[in-house]
């Protein structure tokens, strides 16, 4: 177990910048998930940590040691791949032991002991003599995990390890991975494009886009205090609604003014600077609801599409030329074309700079956002 620190790390491939000078500190024993759309640089970052790629600039440290130019095998990391990366011609047992034996750092007894331990945990003792072709997807994933586990590495690196599994199995494995981590407490860096996976697994979630780290935070803070428009829209499904508004000030009263609505903004940091300018108003779908009657914070909208989801009714609405989604109570009697009044939970509003996309205001300003690019090990 060790901590991992990336300082000003940059990676270019033939002039294309994949990772743009990122800083990241991962504390000992943490489970950090890295999430972002494909091509955002998350896999490259993982591979830089593994040593499969060499950074163009910057340094990587593990523990107190700088590992920037060090061979992967000397970094004491294990990696689990999306497609399991099992050798098809070897039995599960040989797959698990092949790397260890090649490295030559382990005695045979040690290997046997480790295999026994790991396979017991993963419940794959019965599968050891089968080849990957005779295993199901989940079983293969377990064998791949077993291979990573037996080496008892300082850091686990996982590159979308669950993506090839079907939805149900994915949820099951997710829980098992969480359990495994709580058991072994090995520093784990987990790359995924699936925000749910990122949120459910990570102590800390790193959101990346376009080669940059957008935000590093605990899952809930990431949801509640997105620092950029990108994070706000990336985390949460359906995505946060963005409405173009003008911020008007009347004494200490602030309002977000759209063509058809005026929404009061509770006092919090950032409002003062935003006043008088244009902004993007971020409202999560669950912060909107169909009002019984119009009041000061409600505004009219036209329903364009209704999608009954069972536990809620997803409405797509339009006001003026702006569209947005919201979750209504299930069994609400609305039809496309109906006009409704919507109320806003004003405590959950966000404002973003329309140019830079940076957050300028969170209505719920109880806690100040943490410092970017660090993960506090004390939760």
């Amino acid at each position, binding site marked *: 177990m060790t901590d991992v620190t990336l300082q000003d790390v940059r990676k270019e*491939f033939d002039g294309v910048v*994949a990772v743009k000078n990122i800083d990241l500190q991962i504390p000992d024993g943490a489970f950090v998930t890295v999430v972002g759309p494909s091509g955002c640089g998350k*896999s490259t970052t993982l*591979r830089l940590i593994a040593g*499969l790629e*060499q950074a163009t600039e910057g340094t990587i440290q593990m523990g107190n040691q700088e590992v920037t130019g060090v061979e*992967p095998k000397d970094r004491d990391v294990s990696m689990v791949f999306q497609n399991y990366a099992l050798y098809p011609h070897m039995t599960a047992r040989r797959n698990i032991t092949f790397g260890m034996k090649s490295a030559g750092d382990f005695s045979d007894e040690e290997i046997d002991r480790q295999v026994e331990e790991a396979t017991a945990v993963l419940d794959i003792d019965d599968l050891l003599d089968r080849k990957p072709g005779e295993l199901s997807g989940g079983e293969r994933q377990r064998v791949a995990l077993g291979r990573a586990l037996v080496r008892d590495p300082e850091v686990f690196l996982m590159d979308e390890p669950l993506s090839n599994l079907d939805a149900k199995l994915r949820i099951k494995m997710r829980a098992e991975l969480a359990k495994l981590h709580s058991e072994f407490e090995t520093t784990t860096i987990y790359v995924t494009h699936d925000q749910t996976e990122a949120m459910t697994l990570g102590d800390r979630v790193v959101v990346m886009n376009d080669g940059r780290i957008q935000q590093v935070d605990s899952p809930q803070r990431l949801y509640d205090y997105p620092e950029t428009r990108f994070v706000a829209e990336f985390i949460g499904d359906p995505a946060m609604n963005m409405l173009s508004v003008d911020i008007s000030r009347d004494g200490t009263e602030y309002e977000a003014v759209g063509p058809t609505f005026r929404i009061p903004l509770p006092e919090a940091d950032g409002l003062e600077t935003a006043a008088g300018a244009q902004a993007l108003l971020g409202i999560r779908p669950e912060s909107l609801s169909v009002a019984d009657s119009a009041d000061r914070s409600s505004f009219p909208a036209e329903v364009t599409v209704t999608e009954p989801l069972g536990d809620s009714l997803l409405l797509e609405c339009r006001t003026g030329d702006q569209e947005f989604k919201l979750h209504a109570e299930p069994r609400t009697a609305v039809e496309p074309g109906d006009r409704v009044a919507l109320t806003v939970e004003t405590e959950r509003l966000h404002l973003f700079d329309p140019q830079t996309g940076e957050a300028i205001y969170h209505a719920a300003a109880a806690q100040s956002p943490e410092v970017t690019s660090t993960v506090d090990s004390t939760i």
Partner: protein
Amino acid sequence: MSTREVFTDHLQAGVLLLPTMVVSLVFLYYPTVRAVGLSFYRASLAQGDVFVGLDNYRRLATSSEYLQSVLISVLFATCVVVGVMAVALCVSFLIHEITVGKGVYLVAVIWPYALPPAVAGLVFLFIAHPNIGIFTSYIEALGVDVNWFSHGPQAFVVVLIAAVWKQVGYNVIFMTAALGNVPESLTETAELDGVSRTQRLLRVYVPIISPTLVFLVIMNTIYGFFGTFPMVDLMTKGGPAGATNILIYDLYRTAFQFYEFGFASAKSVVLFIAVGLLMYGQFRLSDRYAYYGG
């Protein structure tokens, strides 16, 4: 962003590449360069080399015999390519259309791929022999005077048949594979539309498998130019009257019958340039077709 290029030790890479590089340099590149050098000499065995400048090339340019050889080669290679591919396409389509026992037919048809060209030449020399050939008397009964030891066009045709016979199997291998990859839905659509078998082959399959066909045109051209040497050597020795004197045989004769190494080198150089241009042209062609085939 995954990569296979995980090993970075340049020295190791160099050492591992060394055998290929050394053999390529010594036995492939160096002789080619040497051929160019030698082509400016009058060179033979055991008689000393004399620098003669462009004499050999001048001789090439003015030799009607060489010109004939060029024409014969081009004609021969063209006939080989067309003949082989036409036959192979029919055979492959036939096998493709058969539902039961495909595998057996396939093996029974592709085996000449393994047939040594020298054997093909000797066997054909024997069965098509103008005097003792098994079919000679039957063909002559039809009024054709089988006389290909004296008659140029006949010799050309006989060697051509032998060459086609040997090469069809190789083509069938690729064509059946390509036909097998044509989506079943296309066949079914064509059948529902009432397209006839022949139309289906020409209008549906041929365009789809055209990348394979282009590849085969390249391979067959090379075969037509070089691979048929043993047949020519064993059946006609380039004759009669140069009717089968393809470039490679002409080159062999210049070098190892007449020991005119300098002149032969000039012929090699011309051949090398021709092969280069041909390959270049055909790669361009296949590039164009690559889009078509997807």
